[in-house]
């Protein structure tokens, strides 16, 4: 790992009129690091993620990203073409609802291959071989390659969405509640898979979740948000074992025990 961060976020704020989306968020993300953003609904996690993934422009603040060539680029000063290119090569975005991130009417193979074709791969055999490889890595049978995601279960769709995002070897992946809406056994397998992929590929990731267990399993570092502000941040284990802010204490004590 290098001694420079991958993403630098400084005093990022987003207001919806007079309402606060997120306010004054500052952090660095390092290569290979998984950062969890937790908090209850309405706490600004998703707004923050949308700003970082440049789907929303913030009201103020900056975010810089270190490109593959080592150059620092400020995200909100890049042209739309550059941002979209970044989005489909060096970044990934995993939506909570797979239908938002997949093309439901084209086959699984084409879903995985789309990014390759978008960056100019024009060899069918190669694209298909890569798609087969990625489907097996996310535990989808090869014989489902020509099926549409509509015919897939929720867990399979989510795994397909992950494959589709990782096929171009991104360095940074944004995940919005990646295990939301899945039952616990499927969730466990998906988390296991994600953890393996993140470690193997050395991905940096920002995972937005309201589920502290997911955050504990996936992330090294954690940010707790409330009413658009970061109330506490630190190593995941530290925050969960020794919560300091009253809100974090409340959150941690609200975890259901089986």
């Amino acid at each position, binding site marked *: 790992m290098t001694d420079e961060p991958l993403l630098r976020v400084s005093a990022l704020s987003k207001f919806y009129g007079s309402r606060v989306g997120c306010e004054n968020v500052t952090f660095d993300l390092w290569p290979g690091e998984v950062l969890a953003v937790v908090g209850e609904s309405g706490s600004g996690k998703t707004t923050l993620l949308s700003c970082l993934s440049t789907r929303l422009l913030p009201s103020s603040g900056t975010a810089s990203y270190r490109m593959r060539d080592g150059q620092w680029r400020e995200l909100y000063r890049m042209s739309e073409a550059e941002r979209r290119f970044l989005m489909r090569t060096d970044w990934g975005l995993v939506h909570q609802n797979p239908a938002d991130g997949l093309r439901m009417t*084209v086959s699984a193979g*084409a879903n995985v291959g789309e990014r390759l*074709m978008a960056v100019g791969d024009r060899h*069918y055999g190669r694209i298909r071989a890569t798609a087969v490889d990625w489907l097996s890595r996310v535990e989808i049978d090869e014989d489902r*390659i020509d099926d549409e995601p509509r015919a897939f279960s929720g867990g399979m769709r989510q795994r397909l969405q992950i494959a589709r995002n990782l096929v171009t070897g991104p360095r940074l992946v944004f995940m919005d509640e990646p295990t939301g809406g899945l039952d616990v056994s499927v969730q466990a397998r998906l988390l296991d898979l994600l953890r393996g992929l993140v470690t193997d590929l050395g991905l940096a990731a920002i995972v937005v979740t309201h589920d502290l267990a997911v955050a504990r399993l996936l992330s090294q570092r954690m940010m707790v948000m409330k009413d658009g502000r970061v109330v506490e941040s630190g190593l995941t284990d530290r925050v969960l074992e020794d919560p300091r802010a009253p809100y974090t204490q409340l959150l941690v004590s609200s975890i259901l025990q089986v």
Partner: protein
Amino acid sequence: MNAQSTDIATYNFAYLDEQTKRMIRRAILKGIAIPGYQVPFASREMPMPYGWGTGGVQVTASIIGPDDVLKVIDQGANDTTNAVSIRAFFKKVAKVDVTTETAKATIIQTRHRIPEQPLTAGQVLVFQVPIPEPLRFLEPRETETRKMHALEEYGLMHVKLYEDIAKHGRIATSYAYPVKVEGRYVMDPSPTPKFDNPKMHRSPALQLFGAGREKRIYAVPPFTDVVSLDFEDHSFEVQTFDQPCALCGAENVYLDEVILDDHGGHMFVCSDTDHCEKRRADGHHGHLAPETHSASGKMEPAE
């Protein structure tokens, strides 16, 4: 250019008013300046339903002059309802000469075919286009497709071709086959059979495309590169037919299947009726052509 005094309604030359023609000509000029780019225009109501060529008719009406000779084809044929009606329409509202012969026409309005006889410099081919957006069935949002054109993000077009190969083992798209114009814009060549795609490439004729319902005009100027999209390991191919035209014996032309009886009898004949008639008049004949190949009496096309 007065309309017929006997008519109840009087029309401006070529039906459209001059302001409208100017507006459409501006769109055409912009289209020619940016080959393959879809120019929005204020499409008018025409005295025919959408889907019957309102876009093509407006383009033709805007470029036609009193000295022009108009040919209209519908799937290659001169004698189907759409072709006959549009020809009659311009004969009435512009009093222009009409023809069925490709070589004699200065403007050829077409619904989905390019004549077999190579076009020459100075001719204008006007296509009737139902859906101008090649990305439409992959990406339903117009805001998004426009952005994709603007940023030249055409990976999605290959997703469609990928799907074809995955499902059928080859690129099964046989019409409306996407092309890249002058190395920049991906364009829907209207639902012409892909057989005609190579004819668009560096054609000496000006090619104009009008979509009335979708309110778009686009153009391919003469001698412009028009390249059909494909994969390195699945290259673009046109349809081939295992037999020549049953009436004129022509090979390497686009053929229509014609059913002859209720017992499975059928034949393949030229889709371009003008081309077929010409060849028969020149003495060529296929295996089902009437033995008397003197073209006397009534000339009977296949249908």
